[in-house]
């Protein structure tokens, strides 16, 4: 597998150096692996800290900036960051108003963020946590680690970030984050596996003419393998899987998210099919975002995330944001 890298051991550090060069609004600590908005801490505002394994770019570092995250902590590829990173980030961004950790529900992320919360609290920082677990492909039961956090992470980070930017207190920002997560569901499909730099070959074997339904964002195989389907058939399957789990009440925010190797041409075509299914099911669409936001290295495929948004969530979604990957209104 050919990759645009030097050596596998330095991919994360190399990417951080490149981000630092591209985005002067960010303070990138390459050695300690913390990305902080340059004007942090912002007086009177709750700070948002997220993080996770690398390989999902632009998540999370690309969402650092006014109106969204205060800091992000990238781990090794597909490996959660270590507690020291989040503790350092929390200390860098806390204005005294407290810090909200946004954590995708994976065993490693949860354990490391919990340990980081203890470290930060020892330093007198108030920490709250929102767990993102939106993936309907995983049964949430005693027999799994619970649902995975995927596309809804973007909605949680944007909307809670807007609440924080308005000066809302920590309990409110946390409650908004939880509300977004509880009202969001995702489903993803893969047309190819992805290749981690450390391994150098695809993480699973997907024969020609087949696809994986219900994948996560770490190159793990999905729940089910089927003969290849058309964009329209995939949209039917994915949207129905989401709606079965969450019958819609409010208009929805739609995220049609690329997994990394699917061209925008295909993603826009897929979005047309997603909107068709929603129309057929009588679901009103408030806003739509199409692009590569929560990726899985070079995996081909897409995920659909729906978030039921009441007027308040919609207002916060529309609020100004200025980050490398999401930017409007300022």
């Amino acid at each position, binding site marked *: 597998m050919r990759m645009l890298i030097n050596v596998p051991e330095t991919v994360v550090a190399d990417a951080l150096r490149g981000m630092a060069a591209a985005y002067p609004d960010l303070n990138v600590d390459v050695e300690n692996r913390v990305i902080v908005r340059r004007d942090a801490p912002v007086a009177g505002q709750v700070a948002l800290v997220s993080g996770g*394994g690398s390989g999902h770019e632009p998540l999370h570092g690309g969402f650092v900036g006014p109106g969204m995250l205060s800091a992000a902590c990238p*781990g*090794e*590829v*597909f*490996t*959660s*960051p*270590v*507690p*020291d990173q989040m503790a350092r980030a929390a200390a860098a961004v806390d204005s005294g108003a407290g810090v909200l950790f946004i954590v995708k529900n*994976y*065993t*490693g992320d949860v*354990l*490391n963020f919990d*340990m980081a919360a203890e470290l930060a609290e020892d330093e007198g920082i108030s920490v709250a946590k929102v767990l993102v677990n939106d993936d309907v*492909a*995983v*049964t949430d039961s*005693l*027999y*799994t*680690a619970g649902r*995975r956090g995927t596309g809804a992470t973007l909605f949680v980070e944007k909307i809670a970030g807007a609440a924080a930017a308005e000066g809302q207190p920590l309990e409110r920002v946390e409650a908004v984050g939880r509300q977004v997560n509880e009202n969001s569901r995702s489903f993803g499909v893969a047309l190819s596996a992805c290749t*981690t730099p*450390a*391994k150098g070959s695809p*993480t*699973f074997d997907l024969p020609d003419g087949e696809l994986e339904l219900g994948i*996560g964002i*770490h*190159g*793990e*195989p999905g*729940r089910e393998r089927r003969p290849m389907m058309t964009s329209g058939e995939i949209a039917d399957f994915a949207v129905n899987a989401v709606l079965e789990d969450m019958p819609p009440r409010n208009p929805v925010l739609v995220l049609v998210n690329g997994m990394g190797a699917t061209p925008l041409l295909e993603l826009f075509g897929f979005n047309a099919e997603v909107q068709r299914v929603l129309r057929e099911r009588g679901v009103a669409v408030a806003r739509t975002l199409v692009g590569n936001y929560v990726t899985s290295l070079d995996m081909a495929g897409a995920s659909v995330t729906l978030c039921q948004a009441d007027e308040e969530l919609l207002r916060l979604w529309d609020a100004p944001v200025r980050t490398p990957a999401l930017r409007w209104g300022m």
Partner: protein
Amino acid sequence: MLDADFFRRWMTATAASVDREAERLTALDSAIGDADHGSNLQRGFTAVAAALDKEAPQTPGAVLILAGRQLISTVGGASGPLYGTLLRRTGKALGDATEVGAAQLAEALRAGVDGVMALGGAAPGDKTMIDALVPAVDALGTGFTAARTAAEEGAQATTPLQARKGRASYLGERSIGHQDPGATSSALLIAALADTAEADGE
């Protein structure tokens, strides 16, 4: 009796063994996880060996506490906190003694394994590192060699199991038929302990 140097050599032997087996661990992890278990533990135990060289802790407990702290700070993922907790708890249970007996180590290791179960929420049979560690600790009363055999058998016995914890649990029944990478690396840790003891004629 086992002194600080014995524990340092155990950790160094683990680092060497993880180095040798990294590709196999990653291959196992790629079948039911995310293909990074080998490289993550390699990074962690390399840091452990370097820290022990530099700081030279004076008691068995201090060696394991330092090793655990290094793993927590360098590995990430679930294995960082879980292996870090295993070694830290074991080290704390050993207290300040400058030398410990095999029975004391067995008891301390049980405290470490209990710590891992409390943190990760896994029980025997969930297809995790616990499936190698619990039989190993049970067998440690009989001897180091018995512990190594029990850990290896425990790791192999995870193959027909369905994963209930960690990332492999997302696969449901598709996790059946693959040996668990965490149980496999736990067996390496116990094998390194037995190797170190045998080299000492313990």
